[in-house]
């Protein structure tokens, strides 16, 4: 966020009459973690705040958080990356057992309809003799994104911090980006979303509220990153499969352990999916060696619909043996 916009947003907070907003506005640039922790700690704790006319009042902490929430990041602001950041994701295939907590957290967090998944779990097997594995696929936020190249109206763009966003208020729904993406990462709102959308101002960083006839995809939870929080799939995963971090800092974390990004790739022979396509994905994979779970365990505990998804692939892989 530029200095100018920052000061503008500060003025706005003062106008709300709650001076506590000032400290939270500082959180915009980095101190947000603290506020979030406090919020998660106790529900409805009262805090004292000073109003502009000099009165001290007591309000719900939750209310302060709500009021202090940064003003909606519009199209312009969403095009600017967070300064000095280059986000990166590492997915450890050895730990994935198709628990689908990432999918659920993503669907819930972004108010996505059932048939509109931003992160998908694939059951893959590369060649007849190799072992099958589970493959979580978010958007790869490529450094040479085909989807951005082909968009005729500039509805999708790449930021300096690596994130590729879609502005569904600009998107005309021509779906060219969907044929452009070789990873099927983009999905379409074929009908009016059947999940109730929250009554918030639209931001390309969240793509909420969703719009019929537009394209959506994983945003790496750009709204969370702005608040110094991890993407929803990362924090939701019970196995710690997904690491997220910053290439500038050379560190990635899955929420419980933080490791050096370069070291992790070196130790575990990290690679990117289909390097030969030249899209330069921002998501790295660690091969499924020394697995924590058997691949079969991924089929357990899901309803029939999920089981059925993989039927065709299971049969295909079997027949090729």
């Amino acid at each position, binding site marked *: 966020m530029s200095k100018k916009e920052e000061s503008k947003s500060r003025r706005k907070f003062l106008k709300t009459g709650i001076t506590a907003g000032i400290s939270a506005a500082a959180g915009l640039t980095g101190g947000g973690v603290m506020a979030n922790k406090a919020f998660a700690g106790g529900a409805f704790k009262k805090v004292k705040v000073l109003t502009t006319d000099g009165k001290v009042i007591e309000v719900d902490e939750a209310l302060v958080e709500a009021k202090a929430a940064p003003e909606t990041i519009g199209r312009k602001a969403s095009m600017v990356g967070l300064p000095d950041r280059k986000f990166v994701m590492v997915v450890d295939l050895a730990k994935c057992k198709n628990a689908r907590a990432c999918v659920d957290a993503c669907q819930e967090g972004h108010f996505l309809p059932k048939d509109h998944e931003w992160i*998908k779990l694939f059951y893959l097997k590369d060649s007849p003799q190799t072992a099958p594995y589970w493959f979580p696929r978010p958007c790869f936020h490529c450094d040479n994104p085909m989807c951005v190249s*082909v968009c005729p109206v500039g509805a999708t763009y790449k930021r300096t911090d690596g994130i590729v966003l879609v502005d569904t208020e600009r998107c*005309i729904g021509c779906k060219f980006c969907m044929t452009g993406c070789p990873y099927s990462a983009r999905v379409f709102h*074929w009908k009016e979303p059947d999940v109730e959308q929250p009554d918030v101002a639209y931001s390309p960083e969240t793509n909420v509220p969703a719009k019929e006839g537009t394209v959506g995809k994983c945003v790496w939870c750009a709204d969370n990153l702005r608040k110094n929080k991890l993407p929803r799939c990362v924090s939701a995963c019970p196995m710690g499969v997904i690491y997220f971090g910053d290439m500038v800092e050379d560190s990635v974390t899955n929420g419980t352990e933080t490791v050096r990004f370069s070291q992790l790739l070196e130790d575990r022979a990290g690679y990117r999916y289909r390097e030969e396509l030249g899209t330069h994905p921002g998501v790295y994979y660690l091969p499924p060696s020394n697995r924590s779970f058997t691949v079969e365990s991924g089929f357990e505990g899901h309803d029939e*619909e999920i089981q059925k*998804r993989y039927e065709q692939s299971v049969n295909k892989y079997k027949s090729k043996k």
Partner: protein
Amino acid sequence: MNDIAQQDKLLAKFKPFLETTSTRWYLILLVLILIFAWGISGLVTQITGGHIVTGMRDNVVWGVYIVNFIFFMGLSYAGALVSGVLHLFNSEWRKPIIRMAELVTVISLMIGPFFIFLCIGRLDRLHYLFIHPRIQSPISWDVIGITTDLIGCFIYLYLSFIEDFAILRDQKSINLPKWRQKVYKFLALGYTGTPKQKKIIHKSRTLMSAMIIAIAIIVYSVLAWIFGVTLQPGWDSTIFGPYFVIAAIFSGSGLMIILMWIFRRIYHLEEFITKKHFVNMGVLLLVVAAFYGYFTFCDYLTKWYGSVKINAELIDKLFTEFNWMFIFANYFGIIIPIVIVGIPHLRTIRNITIAAVIAVVALWVNRYIIVIPTLETPFLPIQESRADWLSYSPTWVEWSLTAGGVAIFIILFKLASKFLPIISLSEMSGVDHRELKILE
């Protein structure tokens, strides 16, 4: 035969059609309008219900609509070919069919883009293509190309109309309602046939015909690049530009033969549209079919022989799920026209027309198996439990809009041929009529 006599003869020929309208004409029009209205009802369903009413889903994001789009754009090549190329080569025999060709071009260029609009999820934002254009996108190239092509072809069509409007304005033999005479007078732009006017029209038409050929090649290449520039198996091919251009000429010349047959029957134009026209257009179809077959072979051979995993999967799909379509489009569609026109014994007007119908239908199917199987073969496998997400099948909405598109094509043709003779009066004036007869 001198010019005036020839004109009078043609006017006499078209007199009943320009003067009165038969009940049959109205009946057919009514049927076509009903089909078109049915298509519109499909459109209303799609706009109110969302794209979920179509067979398109997250993998096959473009279906029959884009197939129709490429197909109609391809038909517009009839004009570029007959009026453009043959105009430059100054072929005498093309003159009776020149008007048909130009009408095909303009009408199909008007209908084609509507099918791409149907692929667009937010029609209310269509103008963003103009107010927020990104020149890096092949769709923007298309917007520029198609608009230029449409304007160019319209100017070319109008240039060829001016002399006819003047003839219709000046003639006394046909009783036309006052308003129509006024319209002709207005559209003739005061053309009286002075040597200077004739020279200007002739010059600008030659210039435009050269330009139209260039524009047509560019537009269709750009169309091919919408597919060619992506990384998708089957699309990511350098041959796509020229391959699409050849395919377009193929369907364009096929449609010309069909239209020649239809109008020859309706207006009894046996003495103007002769067997020579069918044979000449047929030979053109044969040559183009040979090229087109060669390109198709090149494209699939390299994909199959190299057998990159994803290409192998696509080829496998084409030879299993889409097997009969592949055989019809790429074997029958190419071999039958070549055989029928190639063997002199088989070259009858009826046979050539049948070959043309097969060619045009096969080309539509060919477009279908270029678009759909690729979209059904993504790099990451489609893992779905819902059948409609798994493989594409067009719904009634898509079929009725397709039928509506064909209907409006015929409606516009009917109206145009009611307003002006389907054979250009002015073009025919200079033709040595005996030559046509002798060559037959």
